[in-house]
């Protein structure tokens, strides 16, 4: 069943979109990641213009993260104070990101920007995840549990210290604000929630209590992607309502199934699979950047200057 997307101006198979939404949602339910970093490139691969893919995916992440925040809220695993500091940074970052995006769209370089960001971040996060899960697997097989110990880093020496009760932290507000800002910028440019960067940063850089990390990051992501959606809608008119609804129906259902299946799966082995998937997307994007194109010319709507 093909469906014509009014903003993307392409006709795509609705079942493929539902399947993509469901599949990526399932993964995010298992791993507690938003899945935007997989969905946006996949949308681009099936022919959705990058500008529309990024803006519409931000809208879909609002749905999946809200669904996630609700369950974390009930379990009281959201540090609202920390979330608000991250959010303040996130909103600033999102505003910067959307403007960079609009400027590069004018120059015809959005595709390059999006692809480069993906190659760099997916490559880095995928490799780290792969190495970590290999190590964890080795430790598990040796019988010892993987333990992390909190270290005192430069992060703890900065001014503007605040008390974050649920995170069990008394640190400066600057690092969380900075992390939020970076993630907000990426959210706007890459059409991702940024959980795949924020979660490791919260654990390793800030040393937050592990129980509140995912809930708090989802809390921030929900608001930042909401703001991003709004800004893309206003500045670029690239949020495709039809595409968003199909993706989020697939996505929210997939997420809920993933959340229920997750406890019965071997997480470490799955994590390696996820790492491989992330690296595969990264290589595909990187490959497209460096191979000689079949068509040396590209068209875009004129009259913009």
């Amino acid at each position, binding site marked *: 069943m*093909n*469906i*014509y*997307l*009014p*903003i993307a101006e*392409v*006709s795509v198979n609705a079942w493929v979109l539902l399947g993509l939404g469901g599949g990526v949602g399932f993964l995010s339910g298992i791993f507690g990641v938003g899945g935007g970093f997989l969905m946006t490139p996949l949308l681009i691969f099936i022919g959705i213009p990058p500008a529309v893919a990024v803006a519409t995916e931000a*809208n*879909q992440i*609002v*749905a999946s*993260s*809200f*669904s996630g925040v*609700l*369950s974390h809220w009930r379990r009281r695993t959201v540090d609202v104070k920390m979330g608000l500091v991250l959010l303040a940074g996130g909103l600033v970052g999102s505003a910067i990101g959307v403007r960079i995006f609009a400027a590069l769209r004018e120059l*015809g*370089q959005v*595709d*390059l920007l999006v692809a*480069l960001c993906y190659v760099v971040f997916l490559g880095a996060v995928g490799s780290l995840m792969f190495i970590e899960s290999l190590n964890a697997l080795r430790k598990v097989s040796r019988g010892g549990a993987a333990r992390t110990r909190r270290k005192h880093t430069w992060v703890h020496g900065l001014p503007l210290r605040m008390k974050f009760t649920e995170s069990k932290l008394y640190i400066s507000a600057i690092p969380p604000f900075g992390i939020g800002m970076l993630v907000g910028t990426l959210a706007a440019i890459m059409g991702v929630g940024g959980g795949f960067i924020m979660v490791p940063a919260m654990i390793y850089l800030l040393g937050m209590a592990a129980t509140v990390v995912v809930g708090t990051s989802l809390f921030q992501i929900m608001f930042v992607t*909401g703001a991003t*959606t*709004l*800004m*893309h*809608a*206003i500045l670029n*008119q690239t*949020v*495709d*309502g*039809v595409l*968003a*609804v199909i993706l*989020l*129906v697939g996505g*929210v*259902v997939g*997420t*809920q199934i993933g*959340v*229920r299946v997750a406890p019965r799966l071997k997480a470490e082995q799955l994590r390696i699979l996820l790492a491989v998937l992330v690296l595969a997307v990264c290589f595909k994007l990187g490959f497209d*950047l*460096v*191979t*000689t*194109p079949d*068509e*040396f*010319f*590209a*068209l*875009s*709507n*004129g*009259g*913009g*200057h």
Partner: protein
Amino acid sequence: MTWGMRLLAGLLGLVVLAAPLRADDQVVASLSQTSVSLDTQFTGSELFIYGAIKPDPGHEDDKFDVIVEVIGPLKPVDVRKKQRNLGIWYNGPAVEIDKAPSFFALATSGEFRDIISYTDDLLFEIGLEHFIQLIDAPEWVEDRDEYIEALGRIREAEGLYAELPGAVEIKEKILLETRIKLPANLTEGDYTARIFVLRDKKVQDVYTQTIEVRRAGLGRFIYSAAQDYPAIYGIVSILVALIAGWLASAFFRTFFPT
């Protein structure tokens, strides 16, 4: 020149050219649709064009040729050439083509150049080259034709430009019919269909019909909302997402508790 002026010029030309020959062949034609709705179910369409030639008395046994042309709205388009730097391919600066048809199909009963004289092609402005306008190429452009050719090549690959020699069938010497594919990626606007009847490489008569291509239904509603009320559209998008997220969470909590 507007379409009206073009047509007027064409008709004047027709009178001037045809008068000495006393050729009064006429064409009547019809289209399977004169409006196309781009709704969410739109996956492309096919235009069926048929008609009849009424030859001038004394020319009933002559061989006629027919050109059927469908042109979409003329729009500016930016063409960029990919460049390579540090091993990475990226878009170079834009060359703005001032005007190019968003859709162009030329179905003919034979090879275009074999059935029409250069004079009449020029006079009636039939070929694609009459519609692509690049007034001022930037100074750094070495080969402007390269950009125009690229436009034609890419749009042809997207199914937007087509030259279909031999696609017009002429039956019983006077009945004509042809089919023109409209792809799913059509642009909104007024399309013009022109049907030319030719004898001895000269245009004898032309029939013109406008086809209205419009977004329709849900797609139209969403598109115009996004364009005209971007802030409200953005807020509604977010609300829809929140409701969907909440519904899914509530539904699964009720029916499949963890």
